[in-house]
């Protein structure tokens, strides 16, 4: 009777150790998964969507030579970004339509398009340049 009790205790002990090993394996798997997620975030690959935040593009808008940083969502229209940049830099003497949005290469972007349409990535530098006035008039009379 005493021996049988000892055997039962040993069996229970082995079962407990087995469960402990399984639990340890699960814990290790969880840690590995968390680590992978952390790495992804650190390298910029982990997007904010996991945290239910919209995609944000950091736009350095150079307004007449003065850089200002604007954070815009991909859904936002470039015309709205332009308006925010003009307000922030106090360039309000001209209507927004008189400011052309250009990329670094000088190509004019469509203000009615959304930020996401241009696939800028996470950061981009754009330029707001004032349209030239009534130039080219023949001042020399030719």
């Amino acid at each position: 009777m005493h021996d049988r009790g000892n055997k039962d205790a040993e069996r229970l002990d082995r079962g407990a150790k087995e469960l402990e090993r399984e639990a340890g394996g699960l814990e290790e798997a969880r840690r590995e998964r968390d680590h992978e997620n952390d790495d992804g975030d650190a390298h910029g690959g982990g997007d904010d969507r996991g945290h239910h935040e919209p995609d944000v593009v950091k736009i350095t808008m150079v307004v007449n030579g003065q850089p200002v940083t604007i954070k815009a969502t991909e859904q936002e229209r470039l015309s709205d970004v332009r308006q925010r940049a003009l307000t922030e830099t106090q360039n309000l003497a001209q209507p927004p339509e008189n400011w052309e949005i250009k990329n670094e290469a000088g190509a004019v972007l469509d203000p009615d398009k959304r930020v996401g349409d241009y696939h800028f990535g996470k950061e981009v530098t754009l330029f707001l340049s004032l349209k030239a006035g009534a130039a080219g008039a023949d001042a020399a009379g030719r």
Partner: protein
Amino acid sequence: MPTPQVVDPEVSRAKFDREIAAYRKMEATYRTRGWLLLDADFPEACVAFAVPKLRPYPIVAAVVIDFTDYDLRPPSVRFVDPFTREPLVARNLNFSMLRRQMPPEMFATMLQQGTVPVTNIVQFSGPDDHPFICLPGIREYHDNPAHTGDSWLLHRASGEGSLAFILDKIWTYGVEPLSTFQIQVQATTLALGASPEAFRE
């Protein structure tokens, strides 16, 4: 010809320094466009324009922008030799800033008809005249008798006349459109050569 400063020089100098500091912040980007700030010493800044997309890289223009009396008066812009800073006369400039004055669709139609309706923003009276940029925000435009009705003071708060504005316009209309070299070779005479020893008695 430099004009005497009538605005408190410290005011103009502070505004000049602000323009140059803004340029320096974006200088790396501007250099990729071919803008080269050669020097900046109040009241003048000298900028050369190269064309990075052509090989070999040509320097197609250089300007001295004079901020004397800025911004009671707009900056003066004159084209210079990039190596000597000597002002250029029209015959030596070889640079134009062409602008179309119509919507793209109309321009395309006229192009198909064989006409290229553009105006040159760089103006001059004759080949020995100093060319100037005919654009609001630039002193030579506002000082021109043809534009006495368009005072600089109406433009001063608009953003025109800043260093970035002026350089952007020179680049947009004069430099950025350049895409190829055009070489003209013309033989005006044809002569045969002979060695004197080859002549016979």
